[in-house]
């Protein structure tokens, strides 16, 4: 049986991610683990995460998850980053006074700003919490069966600004244009929570579980 490894580095709620994957990938085994050997042997790898980036990065480095991520991405297997696990793949984040990240994508994590206003000058709440539309700006197997502009569930106060527009496959407008889905070779990463995004989110996870890691 093929395995999907959900990397556990002690931050946040991994139950939701693993339950949702179990729900859609019924012929695959889902394991929540920090064991490099188990992750190495898995066919698919997921890096989730919630909370503050400083704490997440500290745990990632303390547990050696940084090397595990690097190695598994280099191996060419399908790799999915979610939320803070998405932000952790960028160069750095402005959160907590500036935190260097894993640098798998050439992008920066920025603060939404205070006050944040929409296109009509109305004040917007931060965190960006709730269901917002995702514009599919690039084709990718994870979008299979998901309509353009479908709403996904977000919770975040910092957003990603990618340097290479050709890697951006999803954008959301919230006061700014946020890059909310990036893809490069065998890596795909999303700001929103597919595991909390009802049918569309489950479809995305199913697409990932079926993906062979080859772009488009």
């Amino acid at each position: 049986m093929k395995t999907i490894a959900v990397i556990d580095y002690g931050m946040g709620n991994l139950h939701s991610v693993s339950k949702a994957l179990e729900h859609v990938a019924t012929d695959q085994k889902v394991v929540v683990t920090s064991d490099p050997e188990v992750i190495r042997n898995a066919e698919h790898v997921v890096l989730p995460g919630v909370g503050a980036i400083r704490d997440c990065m500290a745990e990632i480095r303390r547990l050696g998850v940084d090397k595990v991520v690097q190695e598994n991405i280099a191996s060419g297997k399908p790799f999915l980053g979610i939320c803070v696990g998405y932000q952790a793949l960028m160069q750095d984040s402005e959160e907590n006074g500036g935190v260097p990240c894993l640098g798998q994508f050439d992008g920066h994590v920025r603060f939404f700003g205070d006050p944040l206003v929409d296109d009509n000058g109305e004040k917007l709440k931060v965190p960006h919490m709730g269901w917002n539309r995702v514009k599919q700006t690039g084709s990718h197997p994870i979008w299979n069966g998901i309509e353009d502009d479908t709403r996904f569930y977000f919770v975040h106060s910092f957003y990603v600004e990618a340097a290479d527009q050709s890697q951006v496959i999803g954008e959301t407008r919230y006061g700014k244009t946020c890059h909310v889905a990036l893809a490069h070779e065998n890596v795909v990463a999303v700001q929103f929570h597919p595991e909390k995004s009802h049918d569309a989110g489950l479809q995305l996870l199913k697409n990932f579980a079926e993906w062979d890691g080859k772009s488009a």
Partner: protein
Amino acid sequence: MALAKRIIPCLDVDKGRVVKGVNFVDIRDAGNPVEVAKRYNEQGADEITFLDITASNEDRGTTVHMVEEIASEVFIPLTVGGGIRTCEDIRRMLNAGADKVGINTAAVFNPDFVREAAERFGSQCIVVAIDCKRVSAEGEPGRWEIFTHGGRKPTGIDAVEWAIKMNEFGAGEILLTSMDRDGTKNGFDLDVTRTISNAIPIPVIASGGVGNLQHLADGVTEGHADAVLAASIFHFGEYTIPEAKAFMAAQGIEMRL
């Protein structure tokens, strides 16, 4: 293109059953929480709130199992409140599959608990519940005070100042319930909802008093709420979630349809 306003059905759970006190007296049984949660998930609810109103601690184990069961089948955000007093309580609920926890009385007696919880688990999962009553007289500028113990005990704490403080302490969201309105079906207290929502940068969920769909819409348009919570209008089949969403969307409110 904008963020949708959320509709959140609330399950008040006592000893493993969904109940709803009408004016806190006539408690009506509304079914098994897992079945009810699944029904709302299928109907397109944006989130679900599970409020454990069980008085005794020995029944808490039931709650954990129910949260686990709901979280295995319902893939939208799940908030669990009631009896959350320690970081251990939070850890237990998050491990069971909750995405957020509601902290109410414990925050009033120990505000630092909110700070500690937000630092440890992240603001995104800390919802501070505020139960308030209007204490200003008719015609006076609005003033609201926090009450505990189901609305029986005043605390002397101003609700607006408290909301500002809870934001500073790291709350990610405020669940605001008007105890004057809860169970009355007369609509939200729009004044307190708007005053608090405008005073803080984090989202506010309006709660207490929904009797019809116009009340939900008013919560957003006049109360400036980011989400609206209701229980009995959905539990007893008066309205469905899609009906509520269509109604609000027809008034120009951004909804996830």
